[in-house]
């Protein structure tokens, strides 16, 4: 068993490089999805808080639907559904046969949409925690909406939002494992390949778990540091 551990290393026989590359792909898909989710979440939080009625309802329906469907189905829909659409469209232009689409893009979009539904609620909650008087003070000062968002809303909402955003980021990482069904070689897929070709499933699936634990703990640490730094500015007992 211990001899097998060299298979996890970076030597000639080792899967180290492949696993490392796959781990970066995991982080890349998750990061793209999270960024997309943040953009969607910001828009939907705005729509729910003060958007026109049709947009507000759209944001509500989006949230209910995305939180009511299994993540796996969302990815299936985007990957296989996207392929179906692409093939049909290509057929109209005279191309025959199935068209492949990027598993990375389909996965990032699918998880981004799922994450967006969660981030909407996090951001909405953080906005609602802001004392409305501080916004009035900004309005009276003649701030434009953009200045107000940048100088008053975002800095106050961020510390409150960070724990929730951290949760959403952790979820995105874990959901990214589902993108392996598209054939994208991220961590989940790579450990599956390694487990199959070495016939050492325990070793490689356990290694996969460790890789995810490292990614989630390290990035959790980053979030907690950011949280601590953001909170510090509103804490008493620390005048500079």
């Amino acid at each position, binding site marked *: 068993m211990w001899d097998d551990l060299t298979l996890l290393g970076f030597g000639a026989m080792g899967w180290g490089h492949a696993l490392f590359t796959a781990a970066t792909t995991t982080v890349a898909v998750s990061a793209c999805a999270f960024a997309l989710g943040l953009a969607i979440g910001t828009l939907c939080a705005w729509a729910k808080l003060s958007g026109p009625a049709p947009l507000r309802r759209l944001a509500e329906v989006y949230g209910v639907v995305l939180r009511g469907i299994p993540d796996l189905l969302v990815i299936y829909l985007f990957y296989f559904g996207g392929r179906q659409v692409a093939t049909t469209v290509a057929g109209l232009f005279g191309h025959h046969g199935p068209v492949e689409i990027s598993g990375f893009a389909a996965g990032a979009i699918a998880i981004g949409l799922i994450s967006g539904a969660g981030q909407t609620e996090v951001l909405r909650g953080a906005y609602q925690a802001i004392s409305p008087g501080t916004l009035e003070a900004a309005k009276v000062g003649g701030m434009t909406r953009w200045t107000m968002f940048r100088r008053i809303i975002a800095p106050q909402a961020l510390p409150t939002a960070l724990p929730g955003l951290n949760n959403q980021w952790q979820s995105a990482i*874990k959901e990214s494992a589902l993108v392996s069904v598209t054939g994208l070689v991220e961590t989940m897929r790579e450990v599956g390949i390694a487990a199959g070709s070495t016939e050492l499933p325990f070793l490689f699936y356990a290694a996969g778990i460790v890789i995810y634990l490292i990614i989630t703990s390290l990035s959790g640490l980053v979030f907690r540091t950011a949280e601590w730094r953001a909170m510090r500015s509103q804490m008493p007992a620390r005048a500079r």
Partner: protein
Amino acid sequence: MDIHFLLGLIPTLLSGLPLTLELTVFSLLGGGVIALLLNGLRAGSIVGARVADFYVFLFRGSPLLLQIFLIYYAPGQFSFIRHSFVWPFLREPYVCALLALMLNDAAYTSEIIRAGLRAAPRGAIEAAVVGGMSPLTRLRRVILPLAFRQALPAYGIEITGMLKSTSLASVVTLMDVTGIASAEVSQTYRAIEVFLTAAVIYLVLVTLVTYGVQRLEGWLSPTRTPLSARSAA
């Protein structure tokens, strides 16, 4: 979009519903029991608390899909398992998927229970102590009712979460709603229609569960007459 295809599709997909519901209920029950054990362990000793912490860290920090694969494929690597009495069970994708779902649910549920137990305000407990309640009465009459109300919304989300997570069982060949949908797509190549229909089935289930939990929450909310007062009256 042709209507006959859709009409035929609905009963086909619904034939996977019993398995989906079965997996959900069993994993919540098994997960709940393990979660209670974890909380007992946590209360028991410092070492126990560390073990429970590590368990939660392990199962919440990695993807459920990987946990399913690990439980499904990994035992085959060891000949002593292949030759033991558990092998006939561990070879079954149903057992493996259910086991992974239970273990995963336990990690999340134990945290929900923990947060609930911490919810009882110190003052409420002190009032019970001063009132001469025994520790057991205190637990039964003050701490648990408060914990249950506190934990209910989060547990509602966990129930719907597990319902959705059971779809992962399809990747180890189980024919739940998602499994049947995947098989249907590989035959018909109509991914959008099939997966959308499956999505609607889950959406309806999740909506029903959410509604039920909200009703229960309203029933238990402190602004209503408490249950005990009503039964006493």
